[in-house]
C-alpha cells in the first residue's frame, strides 16, 4: 500500500468502460481506478455486470467502448495470453488431466523458463499456499479447499500485475470460508499483488476488501472503504444492498447548517440528522437507519421527554410483533403507530432474558442524531 489515498496513483485505470451484448448493456461507462497493492472488491447481485467487468480486465471480452490501462499500458489490443493479468476462476478451472505441479507449471512453461527454474518456482508457491507435498496429486484427488489453494497458486506463480478473483470462496463451506479469507489476505500482503475480487457476498467483500465498489445495472453505485459503504451509503440501493436497513420516505422541513429535519408520515415523527446534505427544503428524501443503531426501551427516553409529543424528534412509539433469537443478538420487529414495521437488533450481552421484551409489548424506539443517513436518490 505504497501510495494509498493518492488519487493519482491509479495502477489499474478503467475509463468509460462499456460492454454491450446486442441491445443489452452489461457494463455501462464504468470509470474506476485501482491502487497498487490493494484488494478491491466488486460487489453486486447477479446480472449487475461485475463478472463482465472482470472478464474484460482478463481480456476474455472485448469492450464495446472505453479503455483499460494497467501500470500505464493500454490493454485494448492485447490478447488474454499476453496480458500481465491472471485470474482465479470461480470453478477453479484446474486442468483435470494434469497433476497439481503440471497445472501450476503450465503458465511458467509459456514463458520459456528453464526446467529447474520452473520446478523451483512451483515448489515455492506450493509452500506459500501450504500445499507442499501435494504436487503429484490430480485435481480430483483434492478437497475443495485444496483445489482453491492450487488455483490461487497457479495464478500467483505468474507474478501478475493484477490478480483477478471470481467468487474465490463461493465453493467452500462456511467454516472453511472464514479461515480462507484471512489466509488470502495474508498471502496477498506477503506478495504485494494488486487484486480485484468479484463477489456477491457482502460479508466476504467487507473482510477482504481494502475498498469496495458496489455495482448495479452495469454501473458503479458507490466506491469506498467497507465502513464508508456501510455507514455512509449514497443511494437507497447501496444502503439496502449492504446489511439491513430501515428506510422511510419523508420531506425536508428544515435544512440547517449542522442538521436537517425531515418530517416523515411513514415513520410518524421528525427525523433530525446531523449530517448536512444538499437538499432543497420541501423535497422528498429517504432516511435510512441501521437496526443496530436504534434503542428500544419501555419508557419514553429522557432526552425526548422534554419535547412536545407532537414535535417529537428521533423517537417513536410502537408494539413488538415478532422476536427472533439469533444467539449473539435478537431481532425485534416493531410495528409503529403508522403501521410500518421497524427492524431493531439488540446484542444479547448477558445470559438470561431480563433485558428481553415480550411480544405485543408497547415500546419506545429512539436513535442518536448521527445515526440516520439522508438519501436523495
Amino acid at each position, binding site marked *: 500500500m505504497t501510495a494509498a489515498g493518492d488519487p493519482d496513483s491509479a495502477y489499474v485505470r478503467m475509463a468509460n468502460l462499456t460492454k454491450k451484448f446486442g441491445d443489452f448493456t452489461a457494463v455501462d461507462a464504468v470509470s474506476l481506478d485501482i491502487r497498487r497493492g490493494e484488494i478491491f472488491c466488486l460487489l453486486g447481485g447477479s446480472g449487475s455486470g461485475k463478472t463482465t467487468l472482470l472478464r474484460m480486465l482478463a481480456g*476474455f*471480452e*472485448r469492450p464495446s467502448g472505453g479503455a483499460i490501462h494497467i501500470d500505464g499500458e493500454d490493454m485494448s489490443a492485447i*490478447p*488474454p495470453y499476453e496480458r500481465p493479468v491472471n485470474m482465479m476462476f470461480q470453478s477453479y478451472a484446474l486442468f483435470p488431466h494434469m497433476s497439481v505441479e503440471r497445472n501450476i507449471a503450465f503458465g511458467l512453461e509459456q514463458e520459456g523458463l528453464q526446467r529447474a527454474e520452473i520446478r523451483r518456482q512451483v515448489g515455492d508457491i506450493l509452500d506459500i499456499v501450504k500445499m507442499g507435498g501435494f504436487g503429484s496429486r490430480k485435481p480430483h484427488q483434492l478437497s475443495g479447499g485444496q483445489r482453491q489453494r492450487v488455483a490461487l497458486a497457479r495464478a500467483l506463480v505468474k507474478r501478475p500485475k493484477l490478480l483477478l478473483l471470481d467468487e474465490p470462496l463461493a465453493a467452500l463451506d462456511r467454516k472453511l470460508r472464514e479461515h480462507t479469507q484471512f489466509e488470502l489476505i495474508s498471502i496477498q500482503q506477503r506478495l504485494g499483488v494488486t487484486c480485484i475480487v468479484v463477489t456477491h457476498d457482502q460479508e466476504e467483500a467487507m473482510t477482504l476488501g481494502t475498498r469496495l465498489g458496489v455495482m448495479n445495472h452495469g454501473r458503479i453505485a458507490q466506491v469506498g472503504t467497507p465502513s464508508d459503504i456501510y455507514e455512509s451509503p449514497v443511494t437507497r440501493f447501496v444502503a439496502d444492498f449492504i446489511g439491513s436497513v430501515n428506510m422511510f420516505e419523508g420531506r425536508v422541513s428544515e435544512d440547517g447548517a449542522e442538521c436537517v429535519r425531515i418530517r416523515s408520515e411513514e415513520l410518524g415523527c421528525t427525523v433530525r440528522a446531523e449530517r448536512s446534505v444538499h437538499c432543497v427544503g420541501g423535497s422528498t428524501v429517504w432516511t435510512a437507519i441501521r437496526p443496530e443503531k436504534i434503542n428500544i426501551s419501555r419508557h419514553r427516553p429522557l432526552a425526548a421527554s422534554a419535547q412536545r409529543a407532537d414535535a417529537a424528534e428521533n423517537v417513536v412509539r410502537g408494539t413488538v410483533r415478532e422476536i427472533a433469537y439469533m444467539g449473539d443478538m435478537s431481532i425485534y420487529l416493531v410495528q409503529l403507530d403508522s403501521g410500518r414495521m421497524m427492524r431493531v437488533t439488540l446484542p444479547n450481552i448477558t445470559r438470561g432474558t431480563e433485558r428481553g421484551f415480550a411480544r405485543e409489548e408497547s415500546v419506545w424506539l429512539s436513535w442518536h442524531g448521527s445515526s440516520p443517513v439522508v438519501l436523495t436518490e
Partner: protein
Amino acid sequence: MARLTSAAGRRLIAGIPTGWLLLLFLVPFIIVFRISFSEVRLAIPPYTPLLTFRHGSPALELHWSAYQFLFTDPLYVSSYLYSLKVAAVSTLCCLAIGYPMAYAIAHAGSATRPVLLMLIVLPFWTSFLLRVYAWIGLLKNNGVINNLLMSLGVIHHPLALLQTDFAVYIGIVYSYLPFMILPLYANLEKHDAALLEAAADLGARPARAFLRITVPQSFPGIVAGSLLVFIPAVGEYVIPTLLGRTDQLMIGRVLSDEFFENRDWPVASAVAILILLLLVVPILLFQRYQRRELEGAR
C-alpha cells in the same frame, strides 16, 4: 473462446466441415431435386438436361412427368401409405416394449445400471444385416419357431411367418429398439424421485402418479425415441427386402428398384423428394430436440 481465436482459425474450424457437408450432403439433394424434374431418356446420363440452349439463349425445361407418374400409378401411393403404416405400428410397438425396459433400467441399482445399458447397446455394435438375417432362420417355414411349435404339438402345419407384415414389424422393432430405449432412459434417469414421493404424499396411488407425473415428464424422451425409430423406418430397405411381403413393397424398396432395375432416375428422384416431404416435419422436430439436448447445458 468465441472472441479469442483468430478470425482465420475460426473460419477454418467451421469452414472445413461446412464445406464438406455442402458438397456431399446439400448439393446432392439439389441434384436429386433437379433430376426429379427431368424426363428419362436413353443416354448417359439417362435424363434430360434442365437447361437447354435454343438459339443461343438458355431455356428452363421443367418436366412434371415423374411426379404425374407417381400419382397416377396406384403402386406408388399404396407404397407410401404402407410405409407410413409400417413405420407407425413399429414405432408404437417399440414404445410399448421400450418404455418399461427404460423405466426398469433407470430404477435399477447403480451397479447393475451400466451393465444393463451395455446389454442394450451391445447388439447395436454387431452387424445390423446379420441381426435381421437371424430372423429368417427363426421365422421361415422350417425355421426354429415353427420346428419348436410343431415338436411341441401346438401346430401341425408350419405357420407362414416370413414374408408377412408381422415379420417386418418384428425386424424393425428388433433393430431399432435400442434407439427407443436410450433417449427414454436418458430422460427417465433425470427424474427427481421426490416428485413421486410428493405425489404419493398428496394421495396419488402409484399408477396415478406414474400417469400424471412420470409420463408427462418423459414426453421429450418419448418424442425423441419415436422420431429416431419412425423416420428411418419409413425409408427402410433391408428389413422389408429380407423379411417382408413380395406383393406389397415399402417405398424405400420402390426407390431402389426404380433406380437399379428400371434405371428411371427421374422417377427415383421424385420418389426421394416425396419421402423427404413426408419426413420434413419429423426431421425438423428431431433436430430441435437434438439441439436442445446438446446445448441445454449451456
